């Protein structure tokens, strides 16, 4: 876990540096972009953390596809993914789930004058998941002085939630973009299941708290559909010498 944390922090620092160094190189204070709500391209990407965790973490299996479309400074964002988790407890039973999820929402870009369309953004999402779950319980019954083994299965559970998002999108090379999205997830509601209260919801995460933080490192490819509006510069008036 600590190694993963170090990698996370290093990548964060790198991306932050990239984003802000690009901004300082290319943006002039007097630049102006013409407003246009007609989309200029579609960005499609995937979450690297999910892929990394699937590869190196035994209890997780999942992937996530992300896409956004620009409408001036507003971006329609859509995520779709799948995930399964397995929690094993040596002494008291196991939990596993498997399902898909999607999120839809809007991001607002705070960098209006960047000609590369780099983004520092905040936004919101509505998320929904459908998954199955299994639970086995091994527990001591103090009323009968015996060990009990219980098995439960829920075939189809629905859950939905809200997210507040924030993050970066940085143009790396030509059509290649990288970024990260931090997600503050809350308001989780799930079906009234018969036996199992979900411990983990695909796309949301652990359910033992009222709110939950999530994080994605993403790599994107941007498919342009039209030429972006040009950047123009205001002419500075020269002061007349008296």
């Amino acid at each position: 876990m600590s190694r993963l944390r170090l990698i996370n922090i290093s990548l964060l620092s790198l991306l932050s540096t990239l984003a802000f160094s690009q901004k300082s190189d290319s943006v002039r204070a007097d630049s102006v972009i013409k407003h246009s709500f007609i989309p200029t391209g579609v960005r499609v990407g995937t979450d690297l953390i999910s892929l990394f965790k699937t590869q190196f973490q035994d209890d997780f299996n999942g992937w996530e596809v992300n896409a956004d479309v620009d409408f001036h400074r507003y971006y329609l964002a859509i995520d779709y993914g799948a995930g399964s988790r397995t929690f094993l407890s040596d002494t008291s039973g196991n939990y596993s789930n498997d399902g898909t999820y999607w999120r839809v929402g809007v991001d607002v870009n705070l960098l209006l004058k960047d000609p590369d369309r780099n983004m520092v953004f905040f936004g919101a999402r509505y998320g929904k998941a459908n998954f199955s779950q299994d639970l086995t319980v091994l527990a001591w019954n103090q009323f009968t002085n015996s060990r009990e083994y219980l098995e439960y299965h829920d075939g189809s559970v629905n859950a939905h939630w809200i997210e507040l998002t924030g993050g970066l999108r940085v143009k790396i090379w030509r059509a290649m973009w990288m970024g990260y999205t931090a997600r503050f997830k809350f308001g989780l509601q799930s079906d009234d299941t018969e036996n199992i209260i979900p411990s983990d919801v695909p796309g949301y995460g652990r359910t033992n708290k009222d709110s939950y933080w999530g994080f994605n490192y993403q790599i994107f490819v941007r498919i342009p559909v039209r030429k972006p509006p040009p950047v123009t510069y205001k002419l500075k008036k020269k002061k007349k010498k008296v």
Partner: protein
Amino acid sequence: MKKLSWFAFFLLFFASCLDDPDCYQLHNDFVGVTFRVMGTGKGDSVFVKNFTTDKFEHKPSFLYQINYFEEKGTFSFEAPQDKTNFLSFAYTVKNQFISEDCGSAFVLSGLHILGHDLDSARVINATPSKGSGTNIEIYRCPETDTMTIDFNQLYATSDGVIITNKTSRHVSHQFESITTDFSGIVFTGPGTTINLPVDTTKNETTFTFKTGETTNTLVVTYNLVTEQRYRPCGIQTFVNELAIKEHTFDSVSFGLNANDEPARTLEDPHIANLRVFDCPSTNLMQVNFISSDGAAKSVTIKSITADHVAGDLLEKPYTNTTVTLPVDLASSASTFYIKYANDTVDTLRVTYTNTGLQLYHACPDPVINGLVESPDVSNINVITNSTVLKFPPAPNVEITVN
């Protein structure tokens, strides 16, 4: 600086995600039961067997652990004298995996009552707790014919001129019997606050209190209202407008209800309707026995007689370092004859002043001061600055004994 801020911000993001869940008390498998009285809704302390500890306990509420491998259960409330009530209930049990370390938690909800033979019961919180709070309230019908009396001792301090420190304290009396004019003996034994039944077939009850050689009577009158106030209780007779008709105690007054008004209505849970006060004795003189070096000395006294008292003041030989003697309030002098185990006799004669000052309006005995020894005897001395008789008694006289 800006980069550093972003870095710190996201570092905090991660730190907030990494804490582990708490494994302590995973299951919410406790149901709290609180006992109340119908009408006032006040808490009711009941004497039932706690089947968790298997002991009879006097408590206003119990916390029971229920079986999360079942979805129903029954509480059996066993009172002394084999009186038992039951309350059956049901609930929903679900499971939630908490963590690899903690395992699974049984999550209970939807508590509801299936049946009972109590007066009334209701669920106020359908989610069992992890060890506190009330889920079920059990109501009993109020006892409508019970009057409560508490017994108190009055105290005050005086130098014979002014009165200070007027107080009262609950006091326990050893009752040989308390009887009513309609049901015979209703109480025996020691008591400070006593619940007594009133006759709900008429508007008056006479009580007789026997303590040792003293017998006191109390007659109360009241108004009766017969009606159905609480459906599970049916028609009941309620008592109000309580009045003290006559009594032989030193003083009797009404207790106060929650509104600080005289408690003329019989309530349940019971509050003191009447307060009986004993006047402080003003004629008690304390005599201390000392040796020639001034140290307290224990003596054995065979008898104590006095000119104003018929017979012996002692029922049997008495050994102690001090003795309390009652002076004659009808006179300004009293003489006591103290006969020791070796048959020697000390004659203690004191004179004093009856100030005529009453400590309380209801207490006629006057304050006694100006205590002096007369005539002067070499081994008997009135203690300087202790010439006023007090209650509780304080040392007034010292007798030097060999």
